[in-house]
């Protein structure tokens, strides 16, 4: 399966809607419908937690509207939005880590037996928790890179911009993240496909 492709800013409706909202036009509902799923998905990935991602995403949406004047329209909106989500999630992650116990974060026995295919997991209603646990195995920086590049389709240089790190750091973090996931997932994957 190919790496997901990031949306082209020239044709991305989110860009146009954000500009209109910034000008004060009455496009909130439409903007929300386009922006919210992306914010929620990213928050859920960065936090490795489906529960709670909704609340964080709602906070982020409010923050985005309030601080839209701080976005420089000379630059792409999507990257700015990702940065806002990232910062909010880092704050949330720090707070959540204080709440979690060591056993919960260790993720030693994250799964028993054979891992179901994503379709099977979705049918059983397990998909969300499996994704959470798998992403939870990654340290924060690796998780952020993995979500941005492998799951959301950002280019490594875009991810480097969002994370404010060198592209070589993104590459290194991505390699580590893949290796960590391989060690955790591969022993539980049935031979053959993933779906």
């Amino acid at each position, binding site marked *: 399966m190919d790496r997901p492709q990031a949306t082209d800013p020239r044709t991305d409706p989110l860009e146009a809607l954000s500009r209109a909202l910034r000008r004060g036009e009455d496009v*909130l*509902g439409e903007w929300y419908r386009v922006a919210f799923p992306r914010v929620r998905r990213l928050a859920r990935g960065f936090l490795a937690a489906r529960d709670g991602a909704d609340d964080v995403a709602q906070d982020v949406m409010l923050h985005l509207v309030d601080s839209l004047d701080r976005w420089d329209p000379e630059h792409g909106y999507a990257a700015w939005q990702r940065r806002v989500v990232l910062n909010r999630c880092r704050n949330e992650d720090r707070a959540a880590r204080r709440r979690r116990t060591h056993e919960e974060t260790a993720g030693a026995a994250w799964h028993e037996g054979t891992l179901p295919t994503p379709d099977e997991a979705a049918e059983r209603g397990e998909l*969300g928790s499996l994704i959470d646990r798998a992403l939870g195995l990654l340290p924060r920086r690796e998780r952020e890179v993995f979500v941005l590049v492998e*799951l959301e389709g950002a280019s490594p240089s875009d991810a480097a911009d969002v994370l404010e790190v060198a592209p070589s750091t993104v590459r290194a973090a991505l390699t580590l993240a893949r290796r960590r*996931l*391989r060690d955790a*997932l591969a022993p539980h994957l049935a031979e053959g496909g993933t779906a």
Partner: protein
Amino acid sequence: MTDDPLDDLTRALREEWAREESDASLPPDALEECDDATRRSVEWMRVAWRLEALEDDAAVPPTPIPLVRAAARRRPSAPRRAASLALVAAIAAVILAWVVRPGERAPEPAEQPVITGAREPEPVPAPEPAPPREFTSESFQSRDDGVELVHGSVRLVLLHPPSAE
């Protein structure tokens, strides 16, 4: 090669640095180049992520009220203020026109006929009432703090409402 080995070393380091930098700008190693276990693990995550995204994207909650309020705060208030001011001005103009009705104004003194001789002066028809004066653009004057309406000897000043911002 130069005589100074330090120069050679510096050049070699610069070349190595440039090579490293250009490598860094390349996309990460393609997943296809990874070993089979890594590839299958990452693909499992991608498929799972996409499936869940499809479910989640289909269920976007309604726009929360605080967000609607925040967006309303963003909208410029100038057009609304101008519209309300125009409405008030129109109402004031109607009131003013009613208060200062043209029929109640004293008629302008008619010109006295010039007596030229023995002929009896012709009767001068009674002056017709002046046509009702209409408000023109000259009746309105924009001020920094509002608008001023002038009609005859009556002057009405409408001040801008205080800004909510």
